[in-house]
């Protein structure tokens, strides 16, 4: 259990059995009154944000979050299936939870999944992933400018902007945190 005086921005707590994070925190003490801890809190499952004020005598549940290492194995309808690196147990994450990150998941990718009890909350991919360009207009020979971009398709059909000198069959490095082209890994 946390005391109200332990609360701070970024702390993860549990409210009504659900994991939440404090996104804003302010100490307040009106007049001769008691200390109050005014928080903005984000529900990590539902994504909604709400206000809550704690009194100094209140106790707040700790939130037990566990991060485990997984390897991507296959896609099954809307689910992405990963296998635990130690127990080989499967974890299934649907594409809604993965959001845009799903476009950058490749065979045998090593990932970290954050769980609250047995519920997957969040996935983190390696910062960079290498993917081959499946389709793009041919670039002008000798043009190595990196500030002129054109659309290109990844093997999974996702479209990403790449510099004009990138060709079909080239392998590029993508920054998974921003979802953007980083550099060319090898020529096709």
């Amino acid at each position, binding site marked *: 259990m946390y005391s109200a005086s332990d609360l701070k921005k970024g702390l993860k707590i549990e409210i009504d059995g659900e994991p939440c994070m404090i996104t804003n925190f*302010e*100490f*307040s*003490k*009106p*007049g*001769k*009154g*008691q200390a109050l801890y005014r928080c903005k809190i984000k529900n990590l499952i539902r994504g909604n944000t709400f206000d809550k004020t704690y*009194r100094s005598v209140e106790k707040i549940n700790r939130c037990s979050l566990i991060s485990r290492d997984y390897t991507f194995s296959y896609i099954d309808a809307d689910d992405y299936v990963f296998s635990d690196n130690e127990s080989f147990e499967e974890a299934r994450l649907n594409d809604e939870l993965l959001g845009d990150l799903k476009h950058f998941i490749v065979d045998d990718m090593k990932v970290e999944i954050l769980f609250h009890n047995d519920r997957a909350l969040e996935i983190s991919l390696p910062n960079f992933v290498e993917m081959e360009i499946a389709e793009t207009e041919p670039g002008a020979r000798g043009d190595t400018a990196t500030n002129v971009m054109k659309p290109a398709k990844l093997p999974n059909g996702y479209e990403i902007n790449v510099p004009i000198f990138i060709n079909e069959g080239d392998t590029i490095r993508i920054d998974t945190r921003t979802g953007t082209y980083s550099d060319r890994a090898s020529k096709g």
Partner: protein
Amino acid sequence: MPIDSIALRDAVMQRIRAFFRKHGFTEVETPIRLKIPCMELHIDAEPSSDHFLRTSPEIFHKQLLAAGHGKIFELGKCFRRGEVGPLHNPEYTMLEWYRANADYMDVLADTKALIQSVAEVRDLGFQGGEDWKILAVSEAFLEFAGWNPVGSYAEDRFDMDLVEKVEPALKQMGGPVVLIDYPVEAAALSRRNPDNPLVAERWELYIDGIEIANAYSELTDPVEQRRRFEICAEQRKVLGKETYPIDEAFIRALEKMPPSGGIALGVDRLLMLMAGADSLDAVLPFR
């Protein structure tokens, strides 16, 4: 380091001293370390060896009033354990002044004149004159929180609604607002209003929704004061807080103390407002 805030503080401190000198007040120095802190339910004193650091100079000022000093003020550091936030620092500068044979309305007149004088240092966007809004606690709670704490006080509900509903509304109103006539249960060291025993003669000055000062018609009844300390000690025990013994010299002094008005004003917060900032960081360079 915010250099400008250093000059601002210097100018404001000079103004404050000049104001009180002009109005015949005596500047006093009272102990910063004391054996027995003044006991209040939600204020914790910082220990210092076998003493405590003062949370307020008021017990000494009241002894000075009892000894015949009628108009006194002090500018100095006070300390409150565990109070840290954008509007709180465990060490802060307090301006405290008292007037004998006066009450909380006399102190309000002082405060208006003082703020008017200090505001000449830098435009505060308002003056200390007649445009201050005076709002009874009962009216403020009825309007902004939908209930009247006078006669039906509940501590948790009062504190929560003050912070979540009333203070944000005072911020919206902007400028100086005096919240006046607190429920007698929240009287602290103020006296009951003789015409309405449900309220205590206490007011708080808010400027742009920030609490700046707390004023009383001081409680001078030694029997009532002892009773309040005893209740406070019981309540602190329930909360698991340290209790302090009753300061008998202070209780004895109350027997000779004239009816008085007194006030504590947070100088750092006033400077913060004058600097146009929303955190004390702007005026406390070593924080």
